[in-house]
Structures are given as structure tokens and as C-alpha cells.
């Protein structure tokens, strides 16, 4: 359960052997300055209680209160932690039918979630319900490719948010799936879907170049991988520059470990998704060092 893998993504990174899972990274502390932990869920689908003991597949698994216990443990280990979700926290148990998403958002707030994005099922009780339930959310609801201008969500959903954690600037933006054919128009109303690929590159440029973010994270509800040419997290990673991490959802994909996709800059974009219903809590750790931006080096050389 507490398997931990490390991936060298730069030449400078040292090889680490025999890491303790309880106290990570201490043994190579001198090789990095900052440690950022990202915890994540997706498609929790109102699974507030664990699955019942007679469930055919997931008996006694999941449950919000257990997840929060784990989150608190991680926070004790590293307070520099962001808690994120990739959408579809609504729909799936009577909690949603009875309370319309209120409890889901209240619990995410209590657990210290920093941000989530809008999944297609967030629209199940209409766009007006999203607006109403956001009053219970003390986290940011992020989406960059739905134009909400002519809807009740105008101003309530931000394209991105920058979080400064221990001096590290983390820019996070959200992407949502095409709603036409998936959600009745009567529910999403005048929401306009914009091309996620173009929007994503815009967002990365803004966060990386204008706001000088050290890390760029995308909360995506596009889906992990489609055989068709429909945009998915893998294609998104391949066809954009400089996204460090894509936390995906929608396809309920259980990844045992993240996928490291070579992006357009030739670097690695981490793509992860942890199934659904809160059966797992995903975790990605970033170990960062201060140093000159490599763009600077290039500029000097070109003189």
C-alpha cells in the first residue's frame, strides 16, 4: 500500500535507494530545497460512506472519514501539501439525491481541499444548482474551457488559481469535457465549450511565463485515453508544453501508477487518475531545487 516510486526527471537528480516510506526524502534532503505533496481524488460520486458490506465489488471500501484520516497523516509528514479533485464529486448515492451536493462540498471544504474542477455530473441538477452549492465550497472551483459568461456561474468559477506553498508557486487550471451529447442543454444552458487543447496551452503560457509558476497542474475531466481522436489526458500531455501534472477524471480509470508522458517540450508530464468513489487517494511528490531558469542559460549562450 505504501509503495513509493521515484522517477528521475532531470540529469541532476540522484539515485535513491532503500527509501523509508514513513520519512521520505530525508536521505537526499541535500539535493533539494522544497518538497511539495499533491493529494488527489476524482469522480468520488457522492460516495461519502464506504461501500456496503454486501457490495459485489468494493465491499467496505472507500469512505470520506477514512480518507480524511489519511490526509491528516500526510499533512503531519509534509505540511506543504495541496489537496485536489478532478470533478464529478456529485451523483451516485442518495446523499446527492437528498442534499444536491451540499454535503459533498462541505466535506471537501472540511478536509482542506484546495481546488476542484467541474465534471459533467456536476450539472445533473442543473447549472443553477452548481451555483447554489458553491456557497458551501471553501475551495476553488476551476475551469478554463467553459465560457460561463451568459450563465449564473459567471464569476463563480475561475480559470486558474496560483497557490504559493513554502515559496513554491503552483499554478492550477481546470478543463472540462464537451457537454453536448453528454448533458442535456436544459441543464448546462448557455455554457460554451471551448477547445481544451488551445485553452490549456494559453493557461500554461500565462501561468508559466507571465506568473512564473514553478509547477503547473491541470485538473482535467476530459478522460484518460480514447481510441478515437477525442481529446483525452494523454493527448493533452503530448500536445502541450510544460504541464507538470495532469490529474484526470471522468473515465474512472484505475492507474496503479501514473503515466509519464513526453510532452511537446520533450519533458515529462505526469498523468494520473485514481478510479472513482474515493477508493484510493492519489499522491504525487515534487522535490524542487532553486536555480536559474534554463531559459536564462539559453539566452546567454545565444549572445
Amino acid at each position: 500500500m505504501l509503495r513509493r516510486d521515484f522517477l528521475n526527471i532531470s540529469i541532476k537528480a540522484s539515485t535513491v535507494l532503500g527509501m523509508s516510506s514513513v520519512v521520505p526524502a530525508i536521505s537526499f534532503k541535500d539535493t533539494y530545497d522544497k518538497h511539495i505533496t499533491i493529494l488527489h481524488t476524482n469522480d468520488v460520486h457522492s460516495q461519502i460512506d464506504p461501500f456496503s458490506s454486501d457490495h459485489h465489488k468494493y465491499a467496505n471500501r472507500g469512505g470520506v472519514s477514512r480518507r480524511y484520516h489519511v490526509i491528516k497523516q500526510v499533512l503531519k509528514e509534509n505540511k506543504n501539501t495541496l489537496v485536489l479533485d478532478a470533478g464529478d464529486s456529485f451523483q451516485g448515492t442518495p446523499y446527492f439525491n437528498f442534499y444536491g451536493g451540499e454535503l459533498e462540498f462541505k466535506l471537501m471544504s472540511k478536509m482542506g481541499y484546495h481546488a476542484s474542477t467541474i465534471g459533467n455530473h456536476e450539472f445533473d441538477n442543473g447549472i443553477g444548482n452548481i451555483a447554489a452549492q458553491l456557497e458551501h465550497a471553501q475551495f476553488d472551483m476551476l475551469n478554463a474551457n467553459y465560457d460561463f459568461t451568459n450563465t449564473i456561474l459567471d464569476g463563480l468559477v475561475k480559470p486558474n488559481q496560483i497557490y504559493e506553498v513554502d515559496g513554491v508557486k503552483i499554478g492550477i487550471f481546470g478543463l472540462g469535457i464537451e457537454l453536448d451529447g453528454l448533458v442535456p442543454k436544459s441543464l448546462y444552458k448557455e455554457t460554451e465549450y471551448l477547445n481544451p487543447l488551445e485553452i490549456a496551452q494559453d493557461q500554461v503560457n500565462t501561468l508559466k511565463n507571465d506568473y512564473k509558476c514553478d509547477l503547473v497542474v491541470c485538473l482535467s475531466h476530459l478522460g484518460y485515453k480514447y481510441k478515437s481522436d477525442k481529446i483525452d489526458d494523454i493527448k493533452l500531455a503530448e500536445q502541450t508544453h510544460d504541464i507538470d501534472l495532469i490529474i484526470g477524471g471522468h473515465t474512472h480509470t484505475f492507474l496503479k501508477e501514473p503515466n509519464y508522458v513526453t510532452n511537446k517540450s520533450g519533458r515529462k508530464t505526469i498523468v494520473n487518475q485514481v478510479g472513482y468513489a474515493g477508493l484510493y487517494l492519489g499522491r504525487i511528490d515534487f522535490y524542487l531545487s532553486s536555480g536559474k531558469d534554463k531559459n536564462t542559460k539559453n539566452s546567454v549562450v545565444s549572445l
Partner: protein
Amino acid sequence: MTVKLKLQHLLVISILLCLACNDGFQVQQTGQERTAITDSIPNDKALEDFISPYRNKIKGEMEKVLSYNANPMFPKDTPYNTAIGNMMADAVYELANPLFYSKFKDSIDVVLLNHGGIRAGMSQGDIKTRTAFSIMPFENMVVVAELDAVAMKEMFNYLSKGKAHPFSNMSLVIDGNNKLKEAKINQQELDESRTYFVATSDYLIKGGDNMDFFQKAKNIYEIDYKLRNLLIDYFQKKDTISYSSDDRFIKLK
């Protein structure tokens, strides 16, 4: 001299560039982990206490007795038409019709649901809110499609395949080769000169179960009524439910 100047320039430019650039952080390594949330992990007590009242209210509501079911009925009991399907379609006819009339001043002619949409059966005994949730766990809405005679005939042909799709206020007879012998709506033959109002679920309107004739609807009317809520209201209205299969859809030998 020139070389020196160049070096000085380089230094200045480098410093300027560094002031302008992100003197931030670069990723050296990443780590990954996936924690399974199982019963070996303790509950956070404060969060459990917060959830409790919400949970108890649902439990109370879900266990609320709405009616009594006299005959056990399950989706696969009988071919062509089933007790539970007949009940669902008749319930939609009974409760959606007044609502449709008050909104649009027209009457529903036919109700058509889909067999796959009956997600559970009903045992003999108390009918609870939970029962309605198990039969209809989805959030589908009742909608009314206005179909012309051509689309209605396509509907008859679709149904002639013989699957026990629930319907109400209509009767069908097919022969041994699944060919349509007779179709009546409200005990009348199809009138080619008029349109018909067919109540169904938004799932089928959107192409579910390939009921393509719904794609030809002249109009779609929304009555803002969830199928599950309709069932809950129906159960509350009835003291006892006692349904059986009948002759609304028969196949000749």
C-alpha cells in the same frame, strides 16, 4: 578592450536576465503513491460526527413506508409485458398527464419506457422510498415527445421485435413472426391526420436503446418531473400496489 567590453556586457545582461527571469524552483525528482482506502484505516471522528445527522435523515427517509406491494414482481417475470413495467408506465400516465395538461393544454396519448430502465424488482411487502431508488437510481426526467403517424408506425415496428418495453394506454398484437397485427392507442386505430403525445424518459429521447423514432419528434415538452419522484408520489398515493402482466402486448401463436 573589445573582448573585455563584451564580457562586461555579458555579465550585465546575465544579471538583468536573472532579475527578469524566474529565480524559482525546478523539479529534481518526483514520487508517487496510491493509498487504498480500506477498513484498516480509522475514521476521522470529527468528520463522522459531522456526517451523522445527514446520514440519519437519509436513513429515516429511505426507510419510510410509502405503500404495500401485494404481488412480487421482477423485470424478467413474463415476456412482452411485465407487472412491474406495466405499473411504471401506468404510473407515468396517471401522474404526468395532469401535469402535462396544466402546462400545455394537451393530453398524453401513450407512455413508453424501456425495459432496461427497470433496475430492480419489488418483493412482496412494504414499499419504501428505498424501493423507488432501487427501481430507478438514475435522475431521468419524464418528457413528452410529439410524434406524427409516420414516427408512430416506426414505434410500433420497433416494439414488434417483442421486448417487454413498458407502455401504457396502448395495445399491440404481433403474429408468430413478430409482425404487427394490430396497434391501438386509447383503444382507437392510429389516426394518420394527427400527432400523438408520447410520454417517455429523457434517456430515450437522447437516443437510448436506439429508439430512433424519438429523433423525429416534432416537439419535446419538458414537465420537470423526475421519474423516480413520480414513482415515489405514485406509491404514496396508493394504499396497496397489486399488479400483474396483462394483454396489452400479446404475441399470437
